[in-house]
């Protein structure tokens, strides 16, 4: 196990794409938070400042972070794994006696490490922002909603396992990245529209993105503005999937874990069968 981790670290830490994506992730994430604290818009009854105070800061920042899960962390996994196919290095490792399972365990380690990194980043950004904006910090305020860190962690693993599945299917970086993004932003959302309302909330994108819902403040304001501007009812927003879901968090978490297991099962089945 220690050897698998070492192998994976040699491959990953020296990869320049990986380094660039991770550094970008770090700076853009912090930049986004910094910029967001500067934006002020006031809606009667709400204060933007409120979003940056404990415990609301956890909701806001984990929501921001979830966008990076989709765009950065998932794509890192596609690139790292896709390279193993295009450089034929998976083949090289199998030939030297690595089992296909152990290869995937190695990738699993990387997924865990990246998810931990993302979580630490939220912890750092959330703590700093919270400390700056909260006037009366209490232990209880800080801890309240801090479970979102764990929710984020599971979500990150979900996105990355999904990415791993996509790249195992297509075995090609460009195609995989395209299909991965398309699935999230088009394929599933459109597909959902054709299905009965009752099952719509149970699709992977819906479940995964629903883990870190749009903070109430933003959803209410955007909702209210849109209702007034176009006169549409809230129901339509629900069906398109922009608004937070009504599924309880615990159910979403359990379903996420079921989906993660499913993705992993598919990955193992594919990798065990393919000729390299």
């Amino acid at each position, binding site marked *: 196990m220690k050897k698998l981790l070492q192998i994976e670290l040699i491959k990953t830490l020296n990869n320049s794409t990986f380094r660039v994506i991770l550094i970008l992730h770090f700076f853009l994430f912090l930049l986004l938070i910094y910029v967001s604290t500067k934006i002020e818009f006031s809606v009667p009854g709400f204060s933007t400042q409120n979003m940056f105070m404990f415990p609301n800061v956890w909701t806001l920042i984990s929501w921001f972070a979830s966008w990076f899960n989709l765009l950065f962390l998932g794509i890192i996994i596609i690139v790292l794994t896709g390279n193993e196919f295009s450089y034929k290095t998976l083949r090289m*490792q*199998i030939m*030297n006696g690595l089992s296909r399972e*152990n290869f995937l365990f190695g990738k699993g380690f990387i997924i865990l490490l990246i998810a931990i990194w993302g979580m630490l980043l939220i912890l750092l950004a959330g703590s700093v922002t919270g400390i700056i904006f909260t006037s009366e910090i209490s232990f209880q305020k800080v801890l309240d909603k801090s479970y979102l860190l764990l929710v984020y962690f599971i979500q990150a693993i979900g996105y990355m396992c999904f990415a791993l599945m996509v790249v195992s299917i297509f075995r090609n970086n460009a195609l995989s990245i395209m299909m991965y993004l398309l699935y999230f932003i088009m394929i599933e959302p459109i597909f959902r529209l054709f299905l009965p309302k009752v099952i719509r909330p149970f699709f992977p994108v819906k479940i995964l993105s629903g883990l870190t819902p749009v903070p109430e403040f933003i959803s209410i304001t955007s909702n209210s503005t849109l209702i007034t501007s176009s006169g549409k009812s809230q129901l339509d927003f629900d069906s398109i999937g922009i608004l937070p879901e009504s599924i309880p968090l615990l159910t979403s978490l359990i379903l996420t874990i079921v989906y993660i297991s499913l993705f992993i099962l598919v990955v193992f089945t594919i990798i065990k069968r393919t*000729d390299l």
Partner: protein
Amino acid sequence: MNEVLKISGLTKYYGKIVAIDDLSLTIEKGNVYGILGPNGSGKTTTLSIITNIIHPTKGNYTWFGEKPTPASLQRIGSLVETPTFYPYLSLYQNLQIITRIKSLPDAGINRVLGETNLLVRKHSRYNTLSLGMKQRMGLAAALLGDPEALVLDEPTNGLDPEGFAEVRELILREAHNGKTIILASHILDEVEKVCSHVAILKTGKVVAAGRVSDLLTKDDVIRITTDKPNELYEALVRGGWIKTINREGNELVLTLVKEKSSGDLNEFAFKNGFVLEKIEIVKQSLESQFLELVKETNPNSIKS
């Protein structure tokens, strides 16, 4: 257990193309086993299967007398088709990945880089190597950990004449140390010079297999001119020397059974009072046999 590799009834279809067809081979400890065949005859496919890279459609194989597992591959050094490494890692880092997989000490890395003349490039990125250097790097990786068996697919690919000779020497040296070597090649000369055994493949089938020396001498034709051709003819046939024999005027044109050599024949004639005016051995080279065996190469058969 002296069997290093036993292949039984191995078959691989790529869609409708039959890449190898019911292939069986046994390779024993210490053999330098050549797998000789023209392009597309299934050499790489065979080696890819025994190194777990691709799955056979039918058939099975054993390494060291056991059902193969990834762990059995850790005892083998292999270079199949072209060498593949992480382009952005140094030679040293690339080899570190293999030492981790095979649980070897890193100390061996310098040794194999030295043996393949790559030590000065130890910290270069893999993608800065020339074609021939990459091939050497593939060999270096195969030699890591002094494995019991080597699987080499056209190891001299892309090498200069010096590299050619070095690889040949390296193989002979490893063989001398008791290593089992499986060498795929379409270069007859290479097989003839380094291999003890050979299997000749043609469109995925073994058309001939055995010791290189047997395959070489099997059809040596001997031409003898003697004072008493009839008597010699009689004596040789009765003594069980002859595989085929013909009289062409005063000349006997014959091939001997496996156990007898032309030297034995000379001695026998001398002892029995025949005067051999001329004894000529027409060696039929492996090359002509090889060409004969693989001629009329059809495109790969199509599964019906």
